């Protein structure tokens, strides 16, 4: 069996995907006789402008053994408790999708049913009053969660907002220290093997030929290996997610940095705001069918809180994924594998899932069809489930009179999403599947945050008497409020724990 083992791996493309892959493989394949190499060109820009993440990134960093404070200092990172969505329901609405649950089940019934019941009984308390991360975010406070599971301070998780370029550089140093060989230059040619169509080698512009048993395509949107050489095909989801461009620009920090990312609905898409220690990342994701590049850039610049630090950069993309994210001896990771707009900060998460799944299914040189099939099944599910969640944000809008938003509300949505929404509207049920990243609290945040309200709550809620329920709700509310009051501000915590030198904070 040993003679069939992979002996060398070539990662094509650096950037966030390339260096995350290189770092993870260098850590996880340590002890195996496998040479790791990465080619990248300094001339080809990477996309990362500032990147918001989801809490799973902490597992990734922990698996690599990264020191959190050091990593945060070197990537100008801030903490993230969730995402604020402005104007996604009705114009002027605001809700935060937190990394944490609302309240706690009472009498075996999900908290939101009790909240719906109290609301029907005239209690005007918003759902977010029962979420510690939302209340902390609203007050710009942060502290790491408690490990005491009985404490309300254990009911949330957190992620980071960091400079993706610096993160890639940080992981590059990590990977190179563990033996990953980096080669500078552009790929000129990709040679396929006659017998089975596997990639045999790439040739660099300087003529160097690099062979490998396994290729990881981290070349970005164009998919140099997976698409241009292997014709993996693309599942196009434009009909559901029509935004196809983004303009991005960093600006100076003016206000206190917020422990959350902001996504603000706009005329033909939405704008992001990601506060880092040394600047604020901003962008406008839009549909080119609904707004011109110039108008989008103008809207983006007009919305900046501080002075722009550069001219807007433009990106183009198509929502969807490669039909085969693993084809023959090539696995696509990052934008080469597909694109879902960063509305829920899933870009880095998808890179992480790709790496984890590749390691779970780590092949021999022949890249068994079974490994490819299983990888593609898992990744397609991951993409589809995130897609539904993103489409929900667009579909459940009440921005009547805007052509872009009217279309989102009125045009068909995926059947799988329609089913989920029907169940929620009917009786507050959040449909659960084994796979898929977003769990019940996330769906609740968006449904209720965008005014999708069930026609009935779970009738078993009624087995808790009115007075007992009111008392319990009050206790949760107060415990959340008390805990938040005792937390330091986000900037205080960063200054104490992980301030980058020269950061505004």
């Amino acid at each position, binding site marked *: *069996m040993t003679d069939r*083992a*992979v002996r060398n791996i070539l990662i094509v493309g650096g950037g966030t995907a390339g260096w995350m892959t290189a770092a993870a493989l260098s850590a*996880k*394949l*340590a*002890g*195996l006789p496998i040479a790791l190499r990465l080619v990248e060109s300094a001339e080809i820009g990477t996309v990362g402008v500032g990147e918001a993440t989801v809490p799973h990134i902490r597992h990734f960093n922990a698996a690599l053994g990264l020191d959190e404070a050091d990593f945060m200092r070197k990537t100008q990172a801030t903490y993230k408790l969730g995402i604020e969505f402005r104007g996604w329901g009705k114009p002027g609405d605001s809700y935060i999708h937190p990394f944490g649950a609302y309240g706690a089940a009472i009498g*075996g019934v999900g908290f939101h049913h009790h909240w719906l*019941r109290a609301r*029907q009984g005239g209690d005007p308390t918003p759902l977010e009053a029962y979420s510690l991360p939302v209340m902390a975010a609203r007050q710009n406070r942060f502290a790491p969660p408690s490990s005491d599971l009985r404490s309300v301070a254990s009911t949330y998780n957190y992620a980071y907002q960091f400079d993706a370029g610096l993160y890639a550089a940080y992981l590059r140093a990590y990977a190179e220290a563990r033996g990953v060989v980096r080669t500078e230059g552009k790929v000129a040619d990709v040679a396929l093997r006659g017998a089975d169509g596997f990639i045999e080698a790439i040739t660099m512009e300087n003529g160097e030929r690099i062979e490998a048993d396994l290729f990881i395509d981290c070349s970005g949107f164009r998919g140099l290996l997976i698409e241009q050489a292997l014709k993996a095909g693309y599942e196009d989801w434009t009909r559901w997610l029509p935004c196809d461009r983004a303009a991005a620009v960093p600006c100076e920090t003016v206000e206190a940095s917020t422990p959350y990312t902001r996504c603000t609905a706009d005329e033909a898409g939405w704008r992001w705001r990601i506060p880092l220690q040394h600047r604020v990342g901003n962008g406008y994701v839009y549909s080119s069918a609904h707004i011109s590049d110039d108008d989008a850039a103008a809207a983006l610049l007009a919305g900046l809180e501080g002075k722009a630090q550069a001219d807007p950069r433009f990106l183009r993309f198509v929502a969807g994924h490669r039909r085969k994210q693993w084809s023959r001896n090539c696995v696509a990771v990052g934008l080469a594998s597909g694109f879902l707009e960063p509305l829920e900060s899933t870009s880095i998460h998808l890179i992480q899932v790709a790496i984890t799944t590749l*390691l*779970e*299914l*780590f*092949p*021999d040189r022949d890249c*068994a069809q*079974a*490994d490819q*099939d*299983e990888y593609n099944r898992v990744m397609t599910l991951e993409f589809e489930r995130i897609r539904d969640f993103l489409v929900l944000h667009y579909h459940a809008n009440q921005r009547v009179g805007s052509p872009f938003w009217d279309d989102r509300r009125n045009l068909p949505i995926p059947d799988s999403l329609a089913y989920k929404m*029907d*169940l929620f509207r*009917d*009786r507050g*049920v959040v*449909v659960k*599947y*084994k*796979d898929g990243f977003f769990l019940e609290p996330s769906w609740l945040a968006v449904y209720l945050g965008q005014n999708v309200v069930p*026609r*009935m*709550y*779970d*009738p*078993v809620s*009624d*087995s808790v008497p009115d007075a007992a329920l009111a008392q319990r709700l009050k206790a949760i509310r107060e415990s959340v409020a008390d805990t938040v009051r005792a937390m330091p501000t986000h900037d205080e915590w960063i200054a104490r724990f992980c301030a980058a030198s020269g950061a505004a904070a």
Partner: protein
Amino acid sequence: MSRPPLNSVAVLGGGVAGWMTACALARVLPGDGTLRLVETAASAPRGALSTLPALRTFHGLLGLDEAALMRTARGTFKLGARYSGWTDPGHDHVEGFSDAGAGFDGVAFHHHWLRARQRGDAGRYEDYSLAAVAGRLGRFTPPSEDPRSVLSTLSYGLHLNAAAYVATLRATAGRVEARAGEIADVVLAADGRIAAVVLPDGERIVADLFIDATPDGRLIGATQDAGWIDEPALPCDRLALREVAPRAAPPPLTEFEAIAEGWLRRVPLRGGDAVTLAYAGGLTSDDEARDILGGEATIVPLRNGRRRQVWSGNCVAVGPAASQLEPLNGDDAQAIQSGVGRLIALLPAADGSPLAAMEYNRLMAEEQDRARDLAVFRYAAATRTDPPWIQARRAAPSPALAYKQAQFESRGRVVLYDEETFVEGAWVGAFLGHGITPRRHDRLADRIPPAQADAALARLRGMIRQAAQAMPPHADALKDRA
């Protein structure tokens, strides 16, 4: 609340399915609601239950005292199941209720075992499962709550006499208004919902929601869109039940022995063993079945498959009315437990909830099909060449099972779908136990030097054997609970 709350439920049938459902609903229905149960003669419980550890959670929710239950229901402990005669004659394996080994270095244990056995003797896979080892040794002790103790890897199910179990449930059901009766007529409303169930004495049972706990789906069958999907890959359509004298040292295991006619199941109870013979009526007569069991037996028909829609209109089928499966996974009552759990999570309004029904049907169908896959797999992996075995293997496995087995054969990957009752450890135990050996192990297991891995495995095996040998005999553990 904008919709009328569910106020009355009628359970028709009884038995394990009817009483488990009634007891669970009794806890959640509004205090002024009515909960009736009509026990039909045909639904009377028979034989024994061999259950998964999960049933104990259900008992916890009902506030059922386990020690008392075991006394009244002649209960014994179950650490897993032993399968013999399924592949090579004389071969057997135990699937225990504790995951084998411990994943180390981030790689699932079975890959380390697969790798080690290429080099030499790594023992059986089950030798790394404390429940399996203790089960074979006939020993039992309750799990430890100390996560550092190897005893914390144990979990256990129960062996129960079904009739006595139902009697216990009945005694704790509280508000359930029960009566004996037969179903004379099921009256449908114009919209296909059940308007009433009429009993022979003329009493009309009217309810917002009807639970069909009859053995033959008398109610659900009367509603529309409730066809039955037969499962062709399971050959046995008859069960013969009898009880035999107890053994001096009953193992804490359910035993499944493959024989020419089908298979025999032996469930140890206090005071006797409940034996079940599953056979194909077209190949083996009832008399022949009785002969195999020594002359006496109760014959129960079985129709492998499930209802296309187990919730239709205002009728929800539970137990055999919803789905039937040769009981060779040792998961008796599991479908009932999850059915009532899901029903409570999707409790409808009085005027019905078509969407809740749709979701319920999706979940129950997924769950049932995955459990069926495990039963079908046991036949598919068998090497017997007697007629029912040949017949079983002629049917194609579901695409889900075919893919799952192919993934395991290729690289020991366990694919889990939605609503799986049996998760990774259980599938690995079944695959390896029934003789499916992956062509490759996870390459990442190779990060550990061979000598170091061998030493770790030997240490683990020794520790488990020692812990099992230190436990009291199962029979003694039962006395402690008496």
